[in-house]
Structures are given as C-alpha cells and as structure tokens.
C-alpha cells in the first residue's frame, strides 16, 4: 500500500493518549452497528508508485490519441498546439494546489489571474463583464438560459439546430428543473432559418440561443438573429468558439447579450473531454445575475491595489436557495491555461492564427470537395470546420481512413439524422497542407473503394483488428 500518511507507532500512542481513547476504532463508535460495512473495502490491493505508473501507461497505450494519427476530428474540442509555458505554469504548486481564494490576502496571485482572464474574455467576446469561468461549454449554455429565466421570467427558449448537440441536450435536461420549454429552430442551407425563427418568436420567449460558428462550421449572421430576438424582448445567447474571435466579429458587438462557450481551444488539452473551462460573458446590466465566481479590483488597508471575489451576494453561501446559480467553483486552473495562452498568442497572434486556420480550412474544403463522390454539405462561409457529403457509407469510409492513419473527422449522422451522409472536418494550425493533402488522398481512395463496392471486405478486416494496438 502506497499511502500518504505519516503516523508512526510512537505518534499513535501520543495521539491516542491526548485524545483519551484506547484505539483508533473507538473514534468511530458514533457509527451505529446497523450501518457498518463490517468487512474490508473490496478493491484490488494498493500498488507501489512504479506499478501504478505502468498500469496507467498501459491504459494510455490502448488509446489512439492525436499524437498517433493525423486527426481532423473537432466537433467541439480541437487539437491545437498547447505551448510549453501553459504546462509549466499550470503545474506550479502555487496555482495547482490552493483552494478557491477565500483568503484574498494570500490569494492575490490566483485572484489577479481571474481578473486578467476576465479582461481577456471580455475583449474576445465584446462584452464588458466576464465571470471567472464555469464547468465547460454545454453547461455554460444551460447556465445562460437560467440567467435569462431569472431576468425576464419567461418560459420558452428557442435554440438553433446549429448549436452543438451536447449543448442542446444539456439545455433539455436542465430546462426540466428550470420549468422552461425548449423549442428548436431548424437550419436553412447551413445556417439558422431566420424566417422560422421570426415565426417562432413571441413575447413569451425568454432567450434565443445560437452558436458561432455553428456546429456544421457555418458563420451565422448574429446581428440579424439578435435584431429579431430583441424585437420581442428576448435575450440573445451566443455560444462561440473563442479561438475564432480574432477574425470573426465579437458577438457582443453584434447584439448578443450573453456570450458563452467551451474554452478548450484556448490552451487546454483534449483530455478525452475534460477538464477544460466554460466562459461566460454578459452585458453590464446582467452583472448581478451572473453565475459563478467573479474577481473584482479593490484596495487594501494601506491603499494598495488588490483583488477579491466580488458580488458574492449572488452566491449560495450568502443567498442559499435564492442564489443566481448553484455553481460554486470556477475552473480556475484551466482558465489560467486560457489566459496564459491568450497572452502568448497576443493581440496580433490571435488574428494571425485565425487567418492561418481560415486559409487552410478553405484549402481543405476546396481540395476535398473536388474529390469524386465528395461534395460540400453547404456553401456558407466557414472558419475552422466544414461539412461534406459523401456518396458512400460514412462509417466505413472513416474506418478505411483510420486504417491508413488518418482520422477524417466526425460522422454527422451521429447527431443529425438528416445528415447521415455528412462528415465534419476540423482544421487546426497543427494540420499542415501536407496533412490535408494526405487526407485528400486517403479520403478519395476510401470513397472510391466504397463506391466500387468493396465495403463488406473492409468491414470484416476492421472487426478482426478489434482491441487494436495501433502503434
């Protein structure tokens, strides 16, 4: 057993004597016999550090990570390069191991990081107020809907079908508790159907939720949606990919009242889906209804500049059941990664990186849609991700590509029955022109092979390689 305790026999004798009991077991006397476990916990025995390392290494080796293949998989999380200073700063004890900054005098580092993070998110989103982060993207969308409910007491939420399927699903789950009803607005040629939105809007609509760029990669007209929603007094919630906001207009400058989303693309690793952070920004008037922690600037007893957690009367430990949210932590460490990453990218870098990805995305989209049996799913402008239609079984095409060491993307049919032939392809700065050309080669061959009717043979091959060790 590799424990982290330190009680020696001598310690134990001294401690029991000070307490005035004869044994450790006696300290548990308050637990009634009827609810006792009465046997040891049934788990495999503990192992020394090197054995645990070996086991975790074995499990890691059974995963095909972005290190092991050329991947174009995105759909909400992206394989961006994480600079070394992010790892280095996130692993410093002083950031890694404190609790929430309840004692501001000895937490100025963490509090100032939150303040800087809030400033960076405010700049990206074009909104004056950001909190110190929430759990992650889809639940941030759900939290935004709750703010809308608290604000205007209306019961309906309209959500565009271009919003991430996980965000829509999370919203459905939470709406049951909020007592809200969720209605979906369909897509028209790749973007939110404005006419359908206008038809669905009414004075009972609390908020309209859209995503920029939307799930199938298309750039939405945020201003047009916001104008329609505001015409009925509804709030506009825009879920955004923050990495694109160097080249795309800030939704806050286009009428969005709340801009929220998944922060993983800002210097956080994939981690099979988490932990990352959700960001949450709002116009000034919503500051006292925000969920989560907010750092604010103040002065100390000597007049020196300092930072504290502020507006805590919103929070549970003061307001209890009347709190604006039950969220009591931020994702402080992940948000630190976010602000360090944004500082590293810098004012020019975020534009340059966005521009590079934009150009490569365009190149990839044109190159791939020129292949036989491959077409664009829509013609809308895109930034970092785009959807294709394949004239072949998408699952089998993906299998063929994977066998060639390329992860071609996300089968849209997993979330959209109407796009059963759809493939969603994501580009990051880690995918070079050569990688894209390789994808074109592999995808073209896979589609051609499937169209030639060799499908059954390959499916059999893939099944036999299950439990794969693809290294």
């Amino acid at each position, binding site marked *: 057993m590799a424990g982290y305790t330190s009680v020696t026999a001598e310690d134990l004798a001294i401690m029991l004597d000070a307490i005035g009991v004869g044994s450790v077991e006696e300290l548990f006397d308050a637990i009634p016999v009827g609810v006792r476990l009465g046997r040891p916990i049934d788990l495999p025995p503990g192992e020394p550090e090197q054995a645990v390392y070996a086991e975790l290494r074995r499990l890691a080796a059974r995963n095909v990570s972005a290190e092991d293949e050329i991947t174009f998989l995105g759909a909400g999380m992206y394989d961006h390069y994480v600079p070394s200073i992010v790892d280095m700063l996130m692993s410093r004890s002083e950031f890694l191991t404190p609790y929430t900054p309840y004692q501001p005098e000895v937490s100025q580092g963490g509090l100032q990081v939150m303040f800087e993070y809030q400033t960076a998110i405010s700049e990206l989103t074009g909104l004056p*107020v950001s909190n110190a982060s929430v759990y992650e993207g889809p639940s941030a969308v759900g939290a935004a809907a709750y703010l809308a409910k608290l604000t205007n007491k209306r019961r309906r939420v309209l959500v565009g079908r271009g919003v991430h399927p996980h965000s829509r699903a999370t919203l459905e789950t939470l709406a049951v508790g909020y007592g809200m009803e969720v209605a979906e607005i369909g897509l028209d040629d790749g973007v939110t159907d404005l006419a359908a939105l206008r038809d669905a809007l009414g004075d009972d609509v609390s908020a309209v939720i859209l995503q920029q760029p939307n799930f199938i990669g298309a750039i939405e007209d945020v201003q047009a949606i916001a104008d329609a929603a505001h015409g009925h007094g509804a709030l506009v919630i825009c879920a955004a990919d923050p990495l694109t906001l160097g080249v795309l207009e800030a939704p806050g400058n286009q009428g969005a009242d709340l801009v929220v989303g998944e922060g993983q693309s800002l210097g956080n690793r994939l981690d099979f889906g988490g932990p990352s952070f959700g960001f949450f920004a709002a116009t000034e008037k919503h500051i006292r209804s925000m969920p989560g922690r907010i750092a604010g600037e103040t002065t100390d007893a000597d007049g020196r500049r300092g930072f504290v957690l502020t507006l805590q009367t919103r929070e549970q430990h003061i307001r209890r059941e009347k709190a604006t949210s039950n969220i009591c932590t931020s994702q402080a460490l992940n948000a630190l990664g976010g602000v360090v990453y944004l500082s590293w990218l810098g004012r020019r870098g975020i534009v340059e990186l966005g521009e590079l990805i934009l150009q490569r995305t365009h190149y990839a989209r044109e190159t791939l849609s020129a292949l036989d049996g491959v077409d664009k799913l829509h013609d809308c402008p895109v930034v970092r991700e785009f959807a294709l239609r394949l004239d072949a079984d998408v699952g089998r095409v993906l299998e063929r590509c994977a066998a060639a060491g390329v992860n071609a993307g996300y089968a849209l049919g997993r979330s959209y029955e109407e796009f059963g032939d759809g493939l969603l392809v994501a580009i990051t700065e880690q995918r070079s022109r050569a990688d894209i050309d390789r994808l074109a080669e592999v995808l073209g061959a896979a589609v051609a092979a499937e169209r030639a009717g060799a499908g059954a043979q390959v499916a059999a091959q893939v099944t036999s390689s299950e439990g794969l060790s693809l290294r």
Partner: protein
Amino acid sequence: MTGERSDPFTSQTEHQRERATTIFEKGAPRRRAFRAPELDVPAVEGLIPAAQRRGTPPRLPEASEPEIVRHYVNLSKRNFDLDSGFYPLGSCTMKHNPRLHERVAALPGHARLHPLQDPRRAQGALELMFNLQESLAEIAGLPHVSLQPSAGSHGELAGVLLTRAYHADRGEQRTKVLTPDSAHSTNPATVTMAGYEVVKVALDAAGGVDVDDLRAKADDSVACLMLTNPSTLGIFDPNIEEIASIVHGVGATLYYDGANLNAIMGYSRPGDMGFDIVHFNLHKTFTQPHGGGGPGAGPIAVSDRIEPYLPRPQVVRRAPSNGGPPTFDLDDDRGGSESKSIGKLRGFQGNYGVFVRTYAYIRSLGGEGLQDVSEVAVLNANYLLARLREKVGDRLPLAFGERCMHEFVLSGAPMKKELGIRTLDVAKRLLDHGFHPPTVYFPLVVDEALLIEPTETETRETLDAFADAIAAIVAEAEQDPEIARNAPYTTPVRRLDEAGAAKRPRVREVLPD
C-alpha cells in the same frame, strides 16, 4: 533588500509590495511570444463576409515569452498553496496531491485523446472509466455510477433531477426538498435550480438532524432529503437509520452529499446507511488538485431504483461472443426510445483528466489504504481538537459534542465577548503565522464558527505547530487585541475593501484604445 524600509511586523519590503500590475500593462506594442506556422496554402481574400469580419482585434497583451513567464511566476508567489503549508479548510479536504497523478494524466494517450474518438480506439480510457465506476460503486455501497457531473454542485443537481425523474415516472408531483440547517450552501441553491422548494430541518441539541422536526415535515409532498453525514459539524448522525426510515416511509429519496466521505471509508458506506443517491467530490477525497478553484469532478452513485434515470452516456463492458477479452463502449442512448435517462448534463463524458488521477489514487491505496485514510483523518482531527481544547478550550470551545469525525467546529463567541476579537481576526492573524486559516463563519448554525479539517496527510508536528499558533494568537489578544484586529501584516496585501469592490464593481482591466 538591505536599505529598504520594512514593516515593523514583517520581513516584507516596500519593493515586494509595489502596486500590482496586470499582464495587460506589461509588454510593448508589437512585442510577441507566438510565431505562426508558415502559410503553406494559397492566400485567398474575402473568405469571411465583411459584416462578420472582426474590425478591431481584441486588445490582448503584447509581451515576450520571458515577460509572460516572469509575470505569472511572480503572481504565483502571491498565493498560499497546499504544497507550501498547512491548509485546514473545513469541508474542503485539503490533502496532499500526489505528483504521480500529474505525470500519468499528462501521458499523451490520455491528455491528447479526443472525446469523440471511436470507442474502439479509446479502449484504455473506457476501461479506466469502467473500472473507476466499479470502484466508486464499491466505495459508495451503491451499484450504479455516472461519472458525468463536473463538480460537487453539478452532482447535486444531477441527483435532484434524478429524484424528479423518479417521482415523475411514478406519476407523482412532489414539490419540496428538505435540507438541514448545517447543509452545504450549494444544496439549497441546487434545489431551486431543479424546481423544488427548500424546506429546512432543524438540528437537535447534539448537532444531528432533529428527528421530530423531520417527522413533522416529511409527507408526500417531499421529494428528497439532502444530507451530509458526517455533517459539516463533523458529527456522524447516530439516528441515520431512523432518518432513512422516515424519508423512505413517505416515498422520498435520500441524497448523500459526499463532501465528507473522507471520514468513513472502510467503516460505513452511504448505501449501507440507506441513501439512494451519492455524489463524490473527486477533488476532496480523491486528491484531484483544487487548482485555485477548479477543476473538480462530482460523479454520482445510485441505487437500483434510480438507475433507469442516470445521465447518458454510461460506460459499459461488453463480453465478446468469441470468448476473447471484454471490450468497453459508451452507451449513449441508455435504452433508446424507451430511455428514462434524464439526458446529458454537459458535453462529452466528464472530466476524464480527473478520473485518471482518481484512478491512480485508488490503485495506489487499495481498499486497505482508503480505510487508513479515514482512520488517520479522524485521528488527526481528534488529536488537533484535543490539543486546542487543552490550550484554548475556554476561549474557543467545541460547538457540539466531545469528539469529532474528520473535522470539527469551534465557536469564537466567548473569545469575541471576552477579548473583543472575532473569528475573522484569528483567521487573518494565522496568515502571519504561515498557516491557511480554517473555514470561517460556516456552518451558519454556529456563532463565529471555525471549521477545521486537518486531513490524513499532515504530520503530528504540523498539528502541534498549528495548535501553538492559535494559542499564541489568543494569548497575544489577551494583551493587545488590536494586533489581531489589524492582521495580517506579512502578506502581499493587507485586509481588502470587499464592500467597496461590490459597490463599484471593476471586474476587468481598463485598457487604452
């Protein structure tokens, strides 16, 4: 540092206390750290329609890599952290964070695994998650686990939504959720978000749930009782069997807030006590570093009757027909169109990086090691309590009972009355002694509360030193209470104007155009 003026109470110099400057005030125009990869495709104009193209770039910092590193390293030095000192923050379980966990979580096979990777190519991750589900089920004494919730508060929300689904499925519309006065403050907030009314249950003289009050309030309008056991008073409720029987008797569910699980492993399990739903705080009991306020994870374990409603996806093990090794999969529809699942609570399948650390911890300790954790946690708490009672028992008495589980609550009320210093003053003066203060003014049921949780990873010497520091602060206040009232003196800043911050919120840096 010689020649600089220093504060009479500290070793800090004016230089160390200079005005805080943010990263936005550092650097210079056109300075940079990032270098973009070469544009290797033909440049095309007009890819983004003019109306959607950003006109003015966000005013992010413009600084070199050395400047950024120095800025954040210097900021880090303005934090107190668990690796440098004792952090007895009650109900937060500030135990040692093993560095093995950081090493294994950073392996590219875990850290660079995409959440939508085909499950057949994520077998290691799914095996880990499945094994963790099984381990947590054994620890909770409840058979079914969902790893999805992102934090304790998120686990609570999942639990109350599960309760709602359970009652709805039986055609019942219940409206109330009971919580005791000593509950974690997220409990009532969660109840409201899940659409229920909060009804408080009183505590009895011993700090447990007042069973008569519970019986009076428990009827068929009650959906659930949310309870922490041991409570935030550090007391194991001796009436837990009766409480469970009252709650189940009116058809309600019993919810266990797992924040205090560190006290009972190997002795009792929430399932053994009759709970239907439990959330774990992997960042408390299972060593996920707190990160200055996140990330954490709040998996839930439930009984058979709650299982149909669990969130999706669930990790499942499938035995292959050919007798080979089992495979693992994500069950994303939980029964398809017949599914009773409450649905998704977040994106993807949870905070996997936290699961890796938790799994490494459970594999390091095993069942025996987890029992040792609780035994030493309770031993340390009682030892520290004994030392404090011996030294300052009259000024800072134990709020309830004689002994405690893994944490205990002292009341600063006599000290306030007799010496004129408050719990807050003790907390601030502790900073000058190099200790992080306990949780203060919580639980609300104790006047001037100090909630102290030493955890199992502290040595006896540290506990002695902490007791000595508290005693020194009280003795100092007997002579001159002003010292504590104006503390701290040695920290990067002194007491901060929190009221002013809330009145005129400045929540971002003001930047030049």
